[in-house]
């Protein structure tokens, strides 16, 4: 057996979903016996089980930390079930646990059976919480400041900073997230330490009343913020992010509006001033 084959078989035994009582399954145990030696205290399966538990607990803990709001909506048990199903279908493909939840919003949209009694609420929250991860340490590019935006022309295009995410939500999950978040200072990978399952704190399960919320998840001075916007401001910013030139973006949002021109101009000036002060714009033609 060459190295690649051995590693495939070991990984398969470790990454297979755990069985009842978080023991490795009989099939995984049999695979372990093919490649691992027993000792005078542990069978081959028991030795591999140490690694299997460490694998699952480490990854479950990472999701547990990154999605406190989703956990509050689904409850500890529901969230644990979701996490195990997600990891079984989409194992990590990144060297960093930072990216572990990157595919969770899309996965949950395809698996409403794991989204609890109100899938729309859960989906809003998971999108918000992944946006939080992006805002925490996502790339930042050169900023177009207020001085760069003194003279706007109809043909101008803009790009948003890669760490800014715009979200049109059906529920005010930003409020809920702030209530349940433990506001950890960030992720901290450990060196060579075996993971044991951390104690799961009971959480109060929350439900929310439906309310349209337009949100920018962004970063200022290394802290993540949720900034609410009204529908017009959001739609215009979203259109600009989509690549429309300024005049096209304004037309797409306000083309059918009966808003007086002066009032519209005032709004636009106010919005652009705010966006520029937040440093959300970067020069067109950049990396993203």
């Amino acid at each position, binding site marked *: 057996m060459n190295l690649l084959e*051995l590693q495939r078989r070991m990984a398969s035994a470790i990454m297979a979903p755990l069985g009842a009582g978080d023991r490795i399954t009989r099939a995984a145990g049999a695979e372990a016996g093919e490649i691992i030696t027993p000792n005078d*205290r542990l069978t081959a399966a028991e030795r591999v089980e140490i*690694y299997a538990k460490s694998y699952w607990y*480490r*990854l479950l803990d990472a999701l547990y930390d990154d999605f406190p709001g989703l956990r509050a909506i689904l409850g500890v048990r529901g969230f644990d079930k979701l996490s195990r199903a997600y990891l079984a279908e989409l194992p990590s*493909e990144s060297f960093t*646990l930072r990216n572990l939840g990157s595919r969770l919003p899309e996965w949950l949209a395809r698996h409403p059976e794991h989204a609890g009694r109100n899938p729309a609420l859960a989906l809003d929250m998971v999108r918000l919480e992944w946006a939080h991860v992006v805002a925490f*340490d996502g790339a930042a590019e050169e900023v177009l400041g207020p001085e760069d935006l003194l003279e706007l022309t109809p043909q101008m295009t803009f790009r948003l900073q890669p760490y800014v995410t715009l979200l049109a939500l059906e529920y005010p999950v930003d409020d809920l997230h702030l209530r349940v978040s433990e506001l950890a200072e960030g992720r901290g990978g*450990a060196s060579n*330490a075996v993971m044991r399952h951390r104690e799961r704190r009971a959480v109060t399960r929350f439900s929310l009343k439906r309310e349209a919320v337009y949100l920018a998840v962004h970063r200022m001075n290394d802290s993540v913020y949720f900034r609410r916007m009204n529908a017009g401001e959001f739609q215009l910013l979203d259109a600009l992010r989509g690549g429309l030139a300024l005049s096209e973006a304004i037309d797409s949002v306000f083309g059918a509006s009966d808003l007086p021109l002066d009032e519209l101009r005032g709004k636009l000036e106010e919005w652009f001033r705010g966006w520029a002060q937040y440093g959300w714009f970067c020069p067109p033609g950049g990396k993203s």
Partner: protein
Amino acid sequence: MPANRFNGNSAYGIGVGLRIPHYRHIFEHKPPVGWFEIISENFMVDAGRPLSVLDRILERYRVVQHGVAMYFGSAEPLNREHLSRLKKLVKRTKTPWLTDHLCWGSVDGRYTHDLLPMPYTFEAAELTASKIREARDFLEVPIAVENVSSYAEFHVSEMTEWQFLNEVVERADCGILLDVNNIYVSSRNHSFDPFEYLNAVPTERVAQIHIAGHSKFEKYILDTHDHPVIDPVWKLYDHAIRRIGATPTLLEWDDRIPSFDEVHAEALKAAKYLPAPAAVAP
């Protein structure tokens, strides 16, 4: 041997692993610490708070990078994105040497995020050594590999763990991050004499030493980094220092992390075994 080509000829003394719960204390009290070891992957991000924190640490302290995801022993090629990000970080920290583990952890592009034990075969030794050489050439910094604690052994192994370590470091011409706690943990799990292991280590290649605590269970020991260093591990450390000489030493504490002062005091116990100058903070 306080300084050698595997640690950038750096005579560092006793260091502490930089951990998030200690940030505030460090920034407020600015404790004199010989050096900090950072987990590279925690800072291989594009921007944001992790890098701001790191820059503040770098203003005052010496930093050495310790990685957990290079997986030199994985059969698949090195991850180019990982290497590129790591090189960017190396330039930022100016780490005099860089460490990662003698292990594997990914296969077919899927990551376990664990430090899995190697099969001790000549095939694995050659592949691992070639990847270490490739990484060193790309990163342009000395590399030292750490012996991991382990809980399983493979049928296919052709040699002992320490023979495998020697095979790899000789073929790669790289350094060793000697983790004496890991030797202790593995010696208990696999019933070998830890002193036999230590005596087989090529002293001229040891760039750094790790010490840490662990957890005992009925049938095995887990390397949990959540306790003080126990006496048998200090004895191994003492033996290692007698063989190798003063060596940069780092205490790891990763779970149930106590106050910074408590962790630092635990690390400084190593001074008892080191020749005096090596234990002095800058």
